[in-house]
């Protein structure tokens, strides 16, 4: 299973990229763990996860090909 990751704001700074694909990650909890291992700074950060444009709450199961966005607190306007 492949999912596409989009990173925004300070998260894109931490990961050093704004768009990539990962395989064999099945839900948001697993994704968080995976990312926090790679980028320990994310552990202390507050961020929302959107799947196909909708913000998720709780642990969310992915399906193949979904677009998953990592979004730090918004600061528009």
């Amino acid at each position, binding site marked *: 299973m492949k999912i596409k990751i*989009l990173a*925004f*704001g*300070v998260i894109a*700074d931490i990961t050093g990229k704004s768009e990539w694909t990962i395989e064999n990650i099945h839900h948001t909890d697993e994704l968080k763990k995976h990312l926090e291992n790679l980028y320990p700074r994310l552990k202390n950060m507050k961020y929302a996860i*959107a799947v196909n*444009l909708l913000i998720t709450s709780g642990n969310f199961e992915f399906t193949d090909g979904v677009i998953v*966005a990592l*979004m*730090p*607190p*918004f*600061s*528009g*306007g």
Partner: protein
Amino acid sequence: MSEKKRKNVFIEGAILPSFIADAIAKHSTKKDIGAHSIFLGQVRNDVINDMEVKAIDYTAYNEMAEEKFHEIRESAFEKYSLTCMHIYHSLGRVNSGEISLFVFTSSRHRKDAIEACSYIVNRIKEEAPVWGKEIFEDESYIWKQNTP
């Protein structure tokens, strides 16, 4: 989902005063309007650790933001009796002193226009996936945080 056409919210760079003036002028033909309310967000030159903010560079999750702006529009039209509504937000670099958000509501009587304008601005600040990077004189930056 509504059949109404999606409006383009994002503008590259600052929103110019002449653009705002034109937007006002265009409403002179809509003679059932009795009140306009306008919110303009301006980039402030905050001083953080002795360094002055000289610009904000805005990025957005465009697809989701367009969806969210549409939802906010629909909800404001439902909640308030509005004749029309316009929302513009900058993307990219906007210098301090320049405008980065323009919300414009019109109604027959002032209450709807004023309350809707404030409602829209609050929802944009809280829900629009837009991020501002505050850039200092030496081009270093920090990510902006909105005050509640």
